[in-house]
């Protein structure tokens, strides 16, 4: 960074202040994901509008090409990051896109601690404070896809079994 020429420029905006937020760079654009204190999970980017993905989110993480978030309905939702720019540009098909997202039931009150792409695992904190690890299907399939693209067929079969 050239500090002598350092400036700050407006980039985008959330509709509400998000105490937890993350900046993500995709192949074609960049996005910011934020979680408000009231549980609104918001996505905004560049010249795109701000979109509320969920109003009952409790935690989120970005890993393996997915935005993973837990909801008050005791679910972990896996939203492909590549879907989000399309979703931001057109609200007409938003329900069609979001209905295709993979969901998984989790224990009531679970929150995401960290996602570990290399081990295909998602670490959740239970309401009692204990940590549990799950291996969600989207994360496993992502690793299998990478192995297949690299012609590592044996590894991809070993991952599945």
């Amino acid at each position, binding site marked *: *960074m*050239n*500090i*002598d*020429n*350092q*400036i*700050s*420029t*407006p*980039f*985008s*905006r*959330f*509709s*509400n*202040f*998000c*105490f937890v*937020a*993350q*900046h*993500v*760079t995709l192949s074609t654009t*960049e996005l*910011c994901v*934020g979680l408000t204190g009231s549980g609104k999970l918001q996505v*905004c980017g560049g010249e795109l509008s*701000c979109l509320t993905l969920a109003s009952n989110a409790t935690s989120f993480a*970005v890993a393996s090409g997915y935005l993973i978030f837990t909801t008050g309905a005791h679910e972990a939702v896996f939203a492909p990051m590549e879907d989000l720019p399309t979703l931001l540009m057109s609200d007409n098909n938003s329900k069609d896109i979001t209905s295709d997202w993979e969901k998984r039931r989790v224990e009531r009150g679970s929150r995401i601690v960290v996602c570990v792409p290399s081990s295909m695992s998602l670490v959740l904190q239970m309401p009692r404070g204990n940590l549990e690890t799950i291996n969600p299907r989207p994360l496993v399939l992502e690793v299998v896809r990478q192995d297949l693209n690299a012609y590592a067929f044996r590894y991809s079969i070993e991952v599945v079994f």
Partner: protein
Amino acid sequence: MSSMQLALLAGPLDKSQFPRSAARVPVHTCFSPSSDVLGVLWEHGYVEVYHLRTRLGPGRGKVMQPTKIGICSLNETNNHCRQIVILASTCNADSLSFTTLILGSLSESDVVVITQFNGQRITETGAVAMTSRNGRLVRSSTDACVWEAEDGKLFRCSNSSSSNHQDLISFHTLSEY
């Protein structure tokens, strides 16, 4: 119960780095998104950076062997620092370098102080005064510096020479205040 504890303030205290009235407990910590580095920030602008050397594989021995690789005392923001973010680092076998952002407050606005670790020491390279107070730094997996204002607006610190000045709203650097 814990398998490993990192004892902060274990060494003798330097009075210039720790004023008598300063809080002894760090106000914020953060991990590097790309390497095994932990940054620790005290409210009055004192920064310590640790290379944790975490052992991920199986076997006996310590789970991590942290070493303090750098310290820094900020000049501009005396006692209102509240957040530290380490940007993606470049880690080689011999050297480790990264940029650290520290969020503090002036009387009228927030200020983002930028420090760089070049493998040997941390140097304060500059600061940017933002538009308002009570903002937050947004963590990023890339080398992007994003600040969120109180009303949800997002600002990115960038090099003005690579941008179009007419499309941008630029703010004064700290030295111009």
